């Protein structure tokens, strides 16, 4: 046993331990800090990218919500506009129909008045023709039947009108 732990071996062990420590210290000085720094930087970068992604997602969500709200508003505006225009069209159609009905009524009334006027004119024309014929016939009869006795009666009528009976000679 003592041979196992000889002085040389202890020195070697100490030297090895020292080498390990030195190596550890060198490695720590040369590698640990840069690597840690690198890892910290990378972690920080990852955290930053994660935060940026979250912010981007949040912004996207807000844009989506804004877009959906605008779409909803646009749908409502479009629906209101369609309803308004439909109402205007119905009102215009109603006005056109009413105007057409009024025109038709006026035309019917005018046609009735024109027909009545035409009937009246035809009646007056027929009446005038009948009167003309009657007067023409009467004239022919008078020409045939009038005698000097009728002339004498008219002379008496004249003096009865302008002179009066019994006032001759003034």
């Amino acid at each position, binding site marked *: 046993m003592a041979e196992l732990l000889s002085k040389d071996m202890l020195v070697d062990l100490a030297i090895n331990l020292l080498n390990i420590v030195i190596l550890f210290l060198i490695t720590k000085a040369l590698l640990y800090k840069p690597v840690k720094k690198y890892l910290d930087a990378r972690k920080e970068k990852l955290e930053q990218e994660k935060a940026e992604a979250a912010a981007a997602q949040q912004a996207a969500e807000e844009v989506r919500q804004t877009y959906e709200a605008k779409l909803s508003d646009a749908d409502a505006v479009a629906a209101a506009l369609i309803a308004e225009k439909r109402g205007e069209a119905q009102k215009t159609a109603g006005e056109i129909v009413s105007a057409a009905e009024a025109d038709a009524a006026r035309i019917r009334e005018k046609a009735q008045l024109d027909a009545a006027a035409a009937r009246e004119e035809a009646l007056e024309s027929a009446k005038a023709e009948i009167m003309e014929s009657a007067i023409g016939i009467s004239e022919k009869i*008078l020409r045939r039947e009038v005698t000097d006795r009728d002339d004498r009666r008219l002379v008496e*009528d004249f003096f009865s009108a302008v002179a009066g009976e019994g006032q001759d000679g003034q």
Partner: protein
Amino acid sequence: MKKCVITTGETMSEETFRLLTERMRKRYGDDLWFERKYDPDIIGGFFLDFDGQIYDYTLSTQLRRLKEQLMQ
């Protein structure tokens, strides 16, 4: 002298015309002279144009007035 123009149809006789002129002289005096005219359109009676006035005593005028009344 005052002029009196009497227009008659063909039916008035000379005797009736003379009666007319005599009645005119009795009414308006003897200072009258008469002119007789004939109009074939006159149906019985006479026109008398005297002292600025015209007297229409024809049957044709009465017939025309009847026609106007009937047409109203």
